[in-house]
């Protein structure tokens, strides 16, 4: 059975239950076999999605393929994906139609994954009315909730929110993931913080195991100074510490041998190493991106989460890509007219750099065998690279860049689509459906009446 068939089968099973008018839990009760659904799920492959954000629009002429279908061409900006072309899907004609409060950038990022308007608020952009946070949940958090509600797809974190050089400022321009109305989710853009979230407990226990020995030596030294009666308390304490030390050692050895884990996943439970002392500075952006992507791959290997967002800078992001020889900030450049050849060229280079990052992530996933499954991790992961704007200097939210890489959603890959001009809500619905959780609408229902997009599977 190939991947597509498996997805179809999974969908039809749900469809069957839906037609019966019962949810999965009720179905389990009905069949009296709680393990049945789980057993069925165990045979189901893992599906993962990563949403990657880069800011300020693209240069469409050097981004979108000229031809649609499988015989499409990769333009300059997408060239880094050449080796993975067979895994790539480009989606032209997807438009962020959300109106209401907020300027183009704010609605560009704030409505991108939520598909719904921003609340009225006091954040005044350059034009338009002021706005606050999104009125709804974003698709990543929605899917996380769906996956976490089902024991078969539940993971330690459900979702992980990565960032790279996101300004230390919570506002509409710096958030794209929402746990609900007025509930922005802050991305973690410090790799060491992300490391702590993922591996902190394990690392702390390693440190504890290694310092306890030094500490107990001192307990024994001071004990000799004390009266017989006072020694009892210290001895009792030392006994406790020694006990804990032993437990820690056996726990860590156990972990190193990878016991209790499926054979193939041993490696995935090892704590990765980060280069030490990397500051969050503009010039470290390439390294920070790499560190975060490595952590992302590691956390997927360990099945810590099946959903991730990866937000590089922010809406109106101003990284200065000095490593490319570009000293101006990205957002400033993006406002230049197309006639400014220097800016135009630099914007192509900047967007190519973003594409390189996506390609790096895709390659890492492609090179890694799926732990406990078939094929590579990329076969079971879809990277959705997107942007707040279609084009920087026009602030258009038509033809929002959507480039998909990988097989997580089960779509036919190696193809360029053009949908004409459809609301992006339909794409969000399509993603939910492909993840096994179809929905009647996503975000503002007015944009959902035509249902999920067709022709992708």
């Amino acid at each position, binding site marked *: 059975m190939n991947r597509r068939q498996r997805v179809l089968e999974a969908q039809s099973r749900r469809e069957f239950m839906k037609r019966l008018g019962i949810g999965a839990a009720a179905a389990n009760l009905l069949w009296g076999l709680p393990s049945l659904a789980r057993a069925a799920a165990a045979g189901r492959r893992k599906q993962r999605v990563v949403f990657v954000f880069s800011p300020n629009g693209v240069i469409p002429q050097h981004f979108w393929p000229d031809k649609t279908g499988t015989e499409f061409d990769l333009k300059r900006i997408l060239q880094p994906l050449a080796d993975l072309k067979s895994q790539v899907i480009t989606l032209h004609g997807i438009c962020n139609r959300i109106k209401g409060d907020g300027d183009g950038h704010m609605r560009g990022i704030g409505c991108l994954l939520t598909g719904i308007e921003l609340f009225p608020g006091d954040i005044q952009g350059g034009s338009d009315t002021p706005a*606050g946070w999104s009125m709804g949940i974003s698709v990543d958090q929605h899917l996380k909730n769906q996956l976490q509600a089902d024991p078969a797809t539940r993971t330690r974190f459900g979702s992980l929110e990565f960032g790279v050089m996101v300004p230390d400022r*919570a506002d509409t321009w710096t958030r794209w993931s929402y746990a609900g109305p007025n509930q922005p989710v802050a991305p973690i853009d410090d790799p*060491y913080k992300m490391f702590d979230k993922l591996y902190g407990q394990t690392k702390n226990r390693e440190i504890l195991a290694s*310092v306890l020995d030094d*500490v107990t030596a001192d307990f024994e030294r001071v004990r000799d100074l*004390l009266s017989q009666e*006072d020694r009892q308390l*210290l001895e009792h304490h030392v006994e406790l510490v020694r006990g804990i030390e032993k437990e820690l050692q056996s726990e860590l050895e156990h972990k190193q041998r990878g016991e209790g884990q499926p054979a193939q996943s041993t490696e995935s439970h090892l704590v990765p190493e980060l280069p030490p002392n990397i500051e969050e500075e503009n010039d470290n952006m390439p390294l920070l991106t790499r560190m975060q992507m490595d952590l992302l791959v590691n956390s997927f290997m360990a099945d810590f989460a099946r959903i991730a967002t990866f937000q590089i800078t922010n809406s109106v992001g101003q990284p200065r890509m000095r490593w490319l020889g570009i000293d101006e900030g990205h957002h400033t450049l993006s406002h230049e007219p197309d006639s400014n050849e220097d800016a135009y060229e630099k914007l192509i280079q900047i967007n190519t750099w973003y594409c390189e990052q996506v390609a790096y992530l895709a390659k890492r996933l492609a090179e890694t065998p799926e732990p406990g499954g078939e094929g590579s991790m990329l076969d079971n992961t879809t990277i959705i690279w997107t942007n707040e704007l279609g084009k920087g200097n026009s602030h258009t939210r038509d033809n929002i860049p959507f480039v998909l890489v990988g097989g997580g959603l089960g779509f036919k890959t190696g193809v360029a689509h053009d949908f004409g001009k459809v609301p992006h809500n339909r794409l969000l619905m399509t993603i939910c459906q492909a993840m096994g959780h179809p929905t009647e609408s996503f975000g503002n229902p007015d944009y959902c009446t035509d249902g999920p997009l067709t022709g992708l599977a």
Partner: protein
Amino acid sequence: MWKLRMRKRVTNIRNAIGIWGLYAALAVPIVAQEPGTGTPEPTLPPAAPLSALQQRGAEIYRDQCADCHGAHGEGAEGAYEDPLIGDESIGQLAARIDKTMPEGSPEDCRGEDARAVAEYIYEAFYSEAAQIRNRPPRVMLTHLTTAQLRQSLADLYSLGATLPRETGNRGLSARYYNGDRRKEEELKLERVDPTIDFDWQRNSPVEGVDADSFSIEWNGGLMVPRSGRYEIIVRSTCSFLFYLGASDREFINNHVQSGNKTEFRRSIYLIDGRVYPLRIEFRQRKRKTEIPPARIQLAWVPPQGVEQTIPAEYLVPERPTDTLAIQTPLPPDDRSYGYERGIGVSREWEEATTAAAIEFAEVAIEELWPEYRRRHRGRDQPRAALRGFLQQLLEAAMRRPLTDELQERYIDKQLAAEPDDGEAIKRCLLAGLKSPYFLYPDVDLDQPKSARVANRLALILLDSLPADGRIRAAAQKNKLLTDDEVRQVASAYLDDHRLRSKTRGMLRGWLNLEHIADIRKDEELFPGFDQALVADLRMSLEQLLDEVVWQPESDYRQFFTLNQGITTRRIAEYYGEDWRPAGPWRRGYWTEPTVPSPKHLGLLTHPYLLSGLAYHDSTSPIHRGVFLIRYMLGRTIRPPADAFAPLSPDLHPDLTTRERVELQTSPEFCQSCHEKINALGFTLENYDAVGRFRELERGKPIDPRGRYVTRDGREIELQGAADVARFLAESDDAVYAFVKRAFQHFVKQPPAAFGADTMDRLVQHFRDSGYNIQELIVEIAVEATRPIRTAAEQIAFQGDPG
């Protein structure tokens, strides 16, 4: 009824004697005996030669008592196992023996014989003096209590900074700006706002400021009435940023005003004795659309409290030093001696100290290290700077300069193992904070005397490390050796928030307030007595205690004689006349002093205490009596042999509470304790179950007569609360109990461990100083550091070079 019980129990001799034995009559403390006040060593003889009468008592004791009570009152297995120790006078002992002993045939030991036995056992092992003589208490090794651990880590966090002192100022500094950018040239008004609770609608908040575009910065410090988890609530229709604990430590971020999200809640564990920097930047932003009405309120739900706007009492306008309250939950301390002390280790405690160390390390990585690096920029190689940073933290935490060996083990070795600075900091701090040097302050025996005195002083006064300038400076100058030097340094801490917090803890323990946590009353009998009122009453009592201690006279007697209370709007409304404020209500303040009234007798007649020591529908002279005898007079009362439900008032509609209690406790075996308990408890019968004054109960006049037999056997007649108040203010027993409680709380060791006459000296000094509580605290520090100051020179670890 009780005869039947006796017959049933006679088969079990231990139980039967347990009810009827001498011991039950004499009453022991419910807490464990301190070493030295516990079981006497059977071989120890009395110190002084016995008088003829005592000699005769010894012989009778040997013949008639020793089989059940042991040769030296230590108890006998299978018979009466508990030791014969207590605090009754010889007269009371003699009467008891005369009436009840030997068990089953009291006629064998009557009159002069009973007197002789009483004289003998009192001198040989029963009395407190005999207990101390037979087994001198010693200073026990203890680890940091949870309060000490929290305070120590907080001080470690603000190492080297000057901590805020009590200035008496209240409220928050406010700066009102025109425009939403807080530009200096647009600053229109600076003032102190007693509290944050404003509703400007769409109007300008102050003159010169546009209604549609303004900003306000509130700055200052937040204090808490007690350690615990606080829910902080901000209600704001506009954008705001809220920083708490440190200048840049964001607590609530509402940079974006969005939709109708106007309520923001977050919980945080805060420790008393700290002032937390608080800053709120509030903005009404100019926008193209209509501005919302501007409102902001800063409220909280304190532990065991109800929601209220944070009152001015807990806000200070001066900006304090950055600080840290560890959030890790810590298990409660051992209280088996009647006060918290670190004498037990458990897995739970061990793991909690690890978690606290890791939490501290993470904050150090996040906040302390970048700040240190910034201050030492360019001066050191990165790793040299890191070494310097860790060295100063560990020297403070471990209360000693780092020898080469310690430097190697706690720093260099850990740095070598870890290239990442953050992880290296975690290693070093985890090692240091798990080491015996941090957790067991008493293991500083190899340190110079003044350093050791500094360590003790910091613990006794502040529950903390000597991280503070003055203690450290005095130690470095070797100026902590004489009584006067200690007195001088200790006195300088009287306006320190940590010392004040520790004093509050002492008073709470003295009044046993933690056990009066849940006060509820019958809604039909006492309509309007709700949890908000209870929270106000608690605050009123706690402020009264603070007031007495920290006013200049600091006179202990005022606890019982002060004729003013502290009131709130709710209290005034419920309790009426005597609880009216003396002046007008001030905006933003929670409490005001009341008008003077003879009905106020300090804490004795405080409604929080009186309603806490009462049932939901009636008073409880027993609870009040036990409170007076055990806590105020420091006497030992044994818990009842069985649990009894109080007689219901409904079953005896004709009886007053006094009559009902007398009825229920009339059996002789109850009377052995209840004749003392009831006689004190009845004196407060003029105050009903919610502490309101009354003349009548069920149409009958209140009979508040009572009495008390002192430790030295004097019988005192008491005609109601005013008599009790006068008595408590000066009685030897009450003063002794207060001084002892204070010593135990501050030092966490038994006073006798510092010399048999420690208590006598402290009590004498206390009386001579006009019952000055502040001076008492200082003298306790003097007494408790004397053994170190006068001891032979320090000792060294074996094998230590030099």
